């Protein structure tokens, strides 16, 4: 049946149709810009990247098809192992601490009232608006092994000045600490939004029943804030798997092979050594790791929350 026939028919069957042609058209027009942008800026480059990973190719320009050789090379590459474990280590050092600390601070800030609350919240949020270069300069100066303002404190504990960014065991924990300091403001904001969504009536009812503060937290606050916690954890996990800027800046000139993460390995392969094919291979593997981890984490945590 052609479109013209439908139009000539009695209107009743047309109305019964699940989709109205005009509605579909309108919907298409509305989603089209997004779909086009998404396809051009995400889907197409992603497919290109996967295709590139099967080539021995420079960063830009054609290369030679070599099948899965890049992947075999990757699993034999010592640096890939180092970069993978460094990334995992960084994720462990940041994701849960950043989430829990943010929750604690949010609960604290939430108990404050009026301008005091705004002031304290602003204090915690301000680092988040700093660009990474400023964060690098500020902390680089504070930890400077000769003139750093923190060195007298460090010398009290360690007995002497310590070049923290040139001491391998201290490198990742310090950068992780700085990252938590830098990015925690946003997590706090999300938690505060979540906490404000919990109706005060529930707490009133609990108080009438004589519930202790701890029980109020474990039985009311925690379950109700859980969806936000899952969201924060997932955002953190994805962000920290992609760690690059801070580690690159603080490690620059130093033992970069021992401190690099996966994104830095991509950067080094593709941009520094002009080996686009291999860089793409690392990128594909990182992409898969993030997809698997975030889907797994989100599903697991959500399931627990819905219990």
């Amino acid at each position, binding site marked *: 049946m052609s479109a013209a026939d439908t139009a000539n028919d009695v209107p009743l069957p047309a109305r019964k149709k699940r989709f109205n042609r005009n509605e579909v058209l309108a919907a298409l027009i509305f989603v089209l810009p997004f779909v086009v942008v998404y396809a051009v800026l995400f889907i197409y480059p992603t497919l290109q990247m996967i295709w590139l990973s099967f080539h021995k190719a*420079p*960063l*830009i*320009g054609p290369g030679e098809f070599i099948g899965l050789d890049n992947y075999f090379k990757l699993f034999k590459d010592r640096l890939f192992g180092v970069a993978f474990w460094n990334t995992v280590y960084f994720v462990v050092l940041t994701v849960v601490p950043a989430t829990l600390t943010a929750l604690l601070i949010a609960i604290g800030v939430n108990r404050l009232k009026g301008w005091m609350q705004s002031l304290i919240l602003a204090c915690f949020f301000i680092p988040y608006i700093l660009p990474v270069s400023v964060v690098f300069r500020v902390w*680089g100066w504070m930890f*400077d*092994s*000769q*003139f750093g303002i923190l060195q007298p404190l460090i010398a009290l504990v360690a007995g002497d000045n310590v*070049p923290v*960014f*040139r*001491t*391998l065991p201290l490198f990742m924990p310090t950068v992780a600490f700085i990252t938590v300091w830098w990015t925690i403001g946003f997590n706090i904001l999300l938690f505060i939004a979540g906490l404000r969504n919990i109706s005060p009536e529930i707490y009133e009812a609990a108080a009438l029943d004589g519930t202790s503060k701890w029980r109020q937290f474990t039985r009311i606050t925690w379950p109700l804030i859980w969806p936000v916690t899952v969201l924060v954890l997932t955002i953190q996990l994805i962000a920290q798997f992609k760690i690059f800027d801070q580690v690159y800046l603080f490690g*620059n*000139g*130093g*033992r*970069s*092979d*021992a401190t690099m993460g996966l994104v830095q390995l991509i950067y*080094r392969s593709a*941009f*520094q*050594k*002009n080996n686009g094919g291999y860089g793409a291979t690392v990128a594909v593997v990182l992409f898969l790791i993030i997809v698997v981890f975030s889907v797994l984490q989100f599903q697991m945590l959500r399931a627990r929350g819905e219990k």
Partner: protein
Amino acid sequence: MKSFLKMALLSTALLVPSVAQAQEVVTWWDFLGGGDGVRMKALIEKFNAENAGKIEIQATTLEWGTPFYTKVQTSAAIGEGPDVMTYHLSRLPLGVSSGALSEITPDEIAAAGLSGSDYAESNWKAAQVDGKQYAIPFDIHSIILYYNKDMLKAAGLLGDDGLPKGLDGVDNFKAALQKLKDGGAEYGVSIHSAAGDSQWRIFYSLLGQQDGQFLDADGNFLSGDNLDKAVKATTVVADWVKDGLAPAATEYPASIALFTGGKAAMHINGVWEVPTMTDLKAKGELFDWGAIALPTFFDHPATWADSHAFAIPNRVGNEVSAEKRAAVMQVIAWMNKNSLAWADAGHIPAYAPVRNSEEFKTKQPNATYSILADTAVFDPSSVLAGVASPVYDAAGNYLMPAVNGEIDPQSAMEQMRDDLQGQVE
């Protein structure tokens, strides 16, 4: 409406050629962010003033090292980027192999009034790959020994001519450092010990003083007894750090501040920090200072050196036009002929007529250390070497920790050799 459009088109059409005829705009990228960058800006302003209405340089300064070269390479590959840029000759093989540079033909060089005979032969050749010219040298720069005259005098290390004495030889130098430390200096010499690049420059000088080859003609890294020489070179600096005569794991700005603040009696750094000292002194914020070529620790004088040069990027699909290239060549020639001003930035002009001029020969402190132009050892010519290359990365990974006592020099050099050899394709 139609006539309006016509008018608009017409006026644009009229406007474009008139601008082009009047003035050629040359987009310029450099990585000169330090004291030398100030001198370069003055040179560019002078050029623009002298060539007003004909050629105008529009300059942008980018971050030195990996960020600069990454940006140059990616922008050239997609047809973007500048018309002319500064480039390290040590990096040239890597730049040419990745297709980021455009060849400069002999005709273009001649048309600009330049000639290979105006440059030191090794310098001119370093700007070539497979006999083709890819850059025009601008300067030779190296590392030098800065010293605090008051502290050296107090330690009896200053001769009657005002120059340091008794610093040659590994043991003599170390004894001098100890003397300076005993005389109240916190460190005998301050070095930028937190990064591979600065350590590489000292290391490569000490290796050159023993005639050691980092990369031999067969493409092998630290082959044969070169490894022992490399270990020796590393040990020299590691010993200073171990005995507290030089600061451990110190960042670049702090290493300069240790010297300018009077905590270290001497400082090893590039000639590019000469302007920093000159400016501080002019403001009355610095003691009497001097600079000499690096002492001879081993068999004969030798100092690591590199060369800033000018290159034209190979902008794929958007090549620099012929007229623009002619303007660029004029810029390059002008800069070379006026490079005496660039010597204020501490560098040694690559252009021989300037280097041999009376004015340069009396310019201090350049004249004192200009001997290093004759004893220069340039980075190995390889796609793995040069600024922001795998060799620099390896220096950070192995040499730097060896200097700071984290890895033993022997094992550090073996690891460095194996790592780099593994990257040869």
